[in-house]
């Protein structure tokens, strides 16, 4: 083997090693999905819910991260329920502009009158899960803004796959107590417990229901 061939092979090996070291950013990105309940009693929480997203979730996003807003209504497993999508540019200046624009979109959503008779939380979670998986982001988080009381319309069936929430961190945010919950706190507790059991059974990475809105940035950072 001549010296030039040896040199060529060495350069080739070095290039391949370098290429192997190269990777896209997806495994370092964070994809967040916010589920907004607009049904029943929770509909009046819309403005405060939007405020939490604007002040807690959006500022925590860094260039490359993505955010998707899905509403929970009578039949949530529907593409129409996706109210906004945000994928931040890698340039910080552009990312800031995108954040402001998305916040304005959220304001429009907050001021729009919307309501639903039934509460299809599972459908929204399934839609959210499929979108989070499609991003292939290294960190996937699902925030559920709801009272966590599911009421499905007659004929609507929701069953999760075993790996439905694989690699997804789920947090129930701003869970308000209903009248029956105030009467008997065990009703509320058992409802939350049931959700926890259900999502963990379907491979969720973590479950949290006592998160303070001010702790959202820390929660996201801890899971990155």
């Amino acid at each position: 083997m001549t010296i030039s061939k040896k040199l060529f092979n060495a350069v080739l090996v070095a290039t391949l090693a370098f290429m192997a070291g190269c990777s896209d950013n997806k495994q370092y990105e964070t994809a967040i999905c916010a589920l907004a309940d607009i049904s029943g009693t929770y509909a009046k929480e819309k403005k405060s819910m939007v405020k939490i997203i604007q002040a807690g979730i959006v500022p925590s996003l860094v260039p490359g991260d993505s955010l998707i807003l899905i509403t929970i209504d009578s039949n949530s497993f529907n593409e129409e329920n996706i109210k906004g999508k945000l994928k931040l540019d890698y340039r910080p200046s552009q990312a800031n502009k995108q954040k402001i624009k998305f916040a304005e979109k959220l304001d429009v959503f907050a001021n729009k009158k919307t309501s639903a008779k039934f509460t299809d939380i599972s459908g929204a979670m399934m839609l959210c899960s499929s979108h989070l998986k499609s991003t292939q982001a290294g960190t996937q988080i699902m925030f559920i803004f709801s009272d966590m009381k599911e009421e499905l319309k007659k004929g609507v069936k929701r069953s999760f796959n075993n790996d439905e929430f694989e690699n997804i961190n789920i947090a129930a945010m701003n869970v308000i107590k209903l009248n029956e919950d105030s009467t008997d706190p065990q009703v509320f507790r058992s409802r939350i417990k049931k959700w926890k059991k259900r999502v963990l059974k379907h491979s969720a990475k973590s479950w949290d229901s006592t998160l303070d809105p001010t702790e959202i940035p820390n929660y996201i950072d801890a899971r990155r």
Partner: protein
Amino acid sequence: MSSLYIWPQMPFLSITVLVVASMIFLYLARTPMHLALESLSDGIAGGLERTAVWIKSVVVKMQEKNKKVLLESNIAASEQKIAQEFKRVEASYTKHLAEYPALHLKIDESITAIDADFQECGQVVPEAPGWNDAVESIASIKGTASGDRVIEKMLKELHKSAVEGEKMALSEMQKASTKRHKILSSLAPVWKKIQKAMNEVNTRVELVLETSGKIEKYMDEYEKVRKGGDDSIDMLSSKATKLFIFSIIVITVAGFGAFVNFQLIALPMSELVPAGTRVLGLHVSDISALVIVTLEVVLGIFLMEALAVTNIFPQIAGLTLNKRRMLLYAAILGLFFLASVEAALAVLREHIAVTNAATTQALAGKVETAVSTESSQITVIGQATLGFVLPWILAMVAVPLEMLIESSQHVLSKLLILIILLIGYLIGILGHILSTIMKTVVHIYDAYIIIPTQIENLFKSKS
């Protein structure tokens, strides 16, 4: 344990029988057992001791090699220093003694001028007019002693004229003396000029002598190192260790400086380069910032090489003065360019930071407070200055880097020798402990079979 009992229902008897049987067996097998234990002791402890001895011999060889390397490297360094000093002497001669012929000519001219003036100053006593001869002639005329009135009158006239002539001559002489004094006083600046020129000569000769003195000092050092005595080796070793420690400290500080520099430009770099890809887990923008910082260090190395402060690359040291100068200008230009880029990036960083803060505030729904423009300007100026100055500071790292490379070879080798020596000692100690244990086992063995041994001794003494 109970499985070993011959009669399980009688444990005491079983144990007694076992002990007696083992005692008899061990007594009978005493000689081969002693030999076996001795062999084992020799095998393990002796092996370890030999290993320790081998390690010590390896250490001695390493120490010799280390000394040799230290001496050789210092001889080379001394030779290089002397060569450099010779170059300086050459430069010094060229610079300081090149003008010497002109200076010499100047002194010569001054001396000639003085000589001419001196010749001119030569005092010649004016001769009195030739009256004496006239008086003598008249005096010799016959009848002068008889008081001839004509002659008397003539002599009086002659006396008068002689006095007048003397007066005139004196006046002429005074005038000439004044003129000469004037010439002499005009010599003073020429003397001062000569003195100044001589001082200049003195200074230049002193400079040349100073450089020669340095060479002498280096030559002494070189001689000492060449002799390679224990004192000089200790001195060189201590010098290398000191250099190593100092260079480590300086490079650590420089490392922190590089980190600050990196932090200053990493964020704004994401605006300039595509940050969508990562290499080995790092953003391309971060890698770009790292490359800039590394380039600054590299340019610093070239700058120091061109200035002959360091001597890492022999090729650069061998360049002609003109080529070296070109390299120096290129390094300065490159550093200036990178420093300017960093200053610009630092300004951009501040802009991004302000925008980020404003965005977060806007998203939180807070009313944007009026930020003092003055304080913002100070931050921008501060960051830009830091961005411009840090590359120049980082460029200086070439000097401690060379020191570290030079001294690390000896210090690390010394450290390795210490570690190996320690292992050697530990193995020696372990060998000694094992040997003692084996001896103790032999003694315990003998103690266990003491009863049959004593019986044997009793029989022997009776027979």
